[in-house]
Every structure is written in C-alpha cells, then in structure tokens.
C-alpha cells in the first residue's frame, strides 16, 4: 500500500493521537497524517482513526462537543463511501454521540477509572477488523477509561446481536457494559468503535501485539 494514508484526528484534548501514529508508522509502516478537527478536507486520506483522549475535556458528556466539529460533519460522506473509520476509546464515544454507532458510553459501574489489560472474545467477523482464524478467538488489549460502560436499550441490543454487529465482548466485564460489549461495528462493517486500545498492544516490548491486526486492517478496502 504505497500511498495509503490513515488520517489521525486531533481534537483539543486528544492524547492517544501520537500513540496511534507511532503504532501505524513505526510498527506497520503505514503512512499517517494528523487531521485537526477544524479541517473538513478528507480527500487525501484513505481511512480515519478517532483516537482516545478527552476531547473538549469531556465537557457535557464524553464526545458530545467533538461531534459538532467540521471534521465529524465531513465524516458522514466518508463513511457513506465505504471508507474505514476506527474509533478508539474517546473515539468510540464520539462515534456513538454522532450516531455512527448505536448506544452510548456512560460512567463505569464502580466509578473507578480502570487501567488494565483485559481479555476479549472476538464475536463477529464483520468488517474484517479482527483475526479469528484460530480456535481460541481471544485477544488481550489494554483498557483505560472512566466512562466505558456500553449502554443501549433492549431493542438495540437485539439488533446488534441479530445483525452480528458486536465485535468484541469482555471475558470478565470490568465496567458493567450491557452484554459485556467492548466494541461494535456499523451494519456495513466499515466503522468500528471499541473501548480497548489496540495501538497500545503493537510491540512485544510493551506487553503484546494483539492490537496489530486491527490497525493493519485499516488498509482493507
């Protein structure tokens, strides 16, 4: 993928933008470009990552203000065209607030900010975001969030299950998420939102490489 470029969106308060860029460039040799949230020109990027952090200081609700940035407005067309969008942690919160993905992320059940490695079941193959070629279909990724409890009503949950939109489920639910949900995709499969951080699991030296597959899959058409 010679010229394939992943846009990494930077909001005021994003703090995983550089980690994502490091993982893509340094570990996978995929070109990246930082996109300031005020920009609405997405013509020279082929996929987009909404990284983790605390956009707009999590004011009002996590992701609630970021949703109104020019870049997110431009994202509707980008997603419609079938290009891939990955929202990690705060990026997942932004994707639910903007309606790209159903449900919402609310305060962890025990109120703790949880910083840990968690085991996750790969549930769906939709979008090709995860490698479920082997039998165990379990990966380990770090989480770091205070508001990661996925919530949706029972109708939405049924739709998620029936349409195989649940990508990842926690083995041991750390935050009280409905149905142990850690990540979901849209119906087309080109948008994935997840609370765990794949970019923090891209090198053995920092504890694992289970995140590589997901980041690499950004280059899928």
């Amino acid at each position: 993928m010679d010229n394939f470029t992943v846009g990494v969106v930077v909001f005021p308060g994003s703090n995983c933008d550089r980690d994502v860029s490091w993982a893509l460039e340094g570990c996978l040799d995929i070109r990246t470009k930082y996109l300031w949230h005020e920009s609405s020109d997405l013509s020279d990027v082929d996929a987009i990552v909404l990284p983790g952090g605390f956009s707009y200081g999590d004011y009002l609700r996590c992701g609630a203000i970021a949703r109104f940035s020019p870049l997110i407005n431009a994202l509707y067309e980008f997603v419609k065209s079938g290009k891939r969008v990955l929202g990690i942690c705060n990026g997942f919160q932004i994707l639910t607030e903007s309606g790209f993905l159903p449900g919402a992320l609310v305060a962890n059940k025990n109120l703790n900010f949880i910083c840990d490695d968690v085991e996750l079941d790969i549930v769906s193959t939709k979008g090709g975001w995860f490698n479920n070629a082997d039998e165990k279909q379990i990966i380990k990724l770090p989480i770091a969030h205070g508001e990661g409890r996925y919530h949706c009503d029972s109708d939405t949950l049924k739709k998620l299950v029936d349409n195989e939109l649940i990508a990842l489920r926690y083995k041991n639910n750390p935050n009280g998420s409905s149905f142990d949900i850690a990540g979901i995709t849209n119906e087309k499969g080109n948008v994935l939102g997840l609370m765990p951080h794949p970019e923090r699991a891209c090198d053995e030296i920092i504890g694992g490489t289970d995140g590589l597959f997901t980041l690499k899959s950004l280059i899928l058409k």
Partner: protein
Amino acid sequence: MDQFAVKVFVRLRPSVLDPAGEATKSASIKLGGEGIKSLRIGKMIEVKIEGNGENEVREKIDLLCDRLFANTVIEDYEYSLEKL
C-alpha cells in the same frame, strides 16, 4: 424581541444505572440521612435566549436539548421557561 430565561434539567433515564448517585446516596446515609430511598444526579443548564415569542424560543430549546444538552439514548430532559 423577547428575552427568556430557560432552565433545562437533564436526567439519566430511570433504566440507566447512576453510579455517582449511588455513591452519593451511600455517603448521605453515612452522614445521617436515614430514610433516603433513592438519589440520582442530573444536570441543570441555564440559558438566556432572545426570540420572537415563546413558540420560537421553545423550538430552539427543543433542538438544543435533543441534539446537544441531552443524549436521548441515556437521558431525558425537561425545561422551564420564564419571560424576562
């Protein structure tokens, strides 16, 4: 143009667990607040807004509540409006 003072109340829907409310309830009981059956925490947003009459202002506030102040997946809202 009329000016209105609006107070918007945003509350987690009853079906959504409110861990901050639960923690505060527990502290309230430790302080001696026996008899507290339920405690839930919401937000109140005060807005001063100009418009041509109450109906126009209500339309604007409805939009703001629905699209920004509350996330209706998890929250309900209501507001009171006072002409200044």
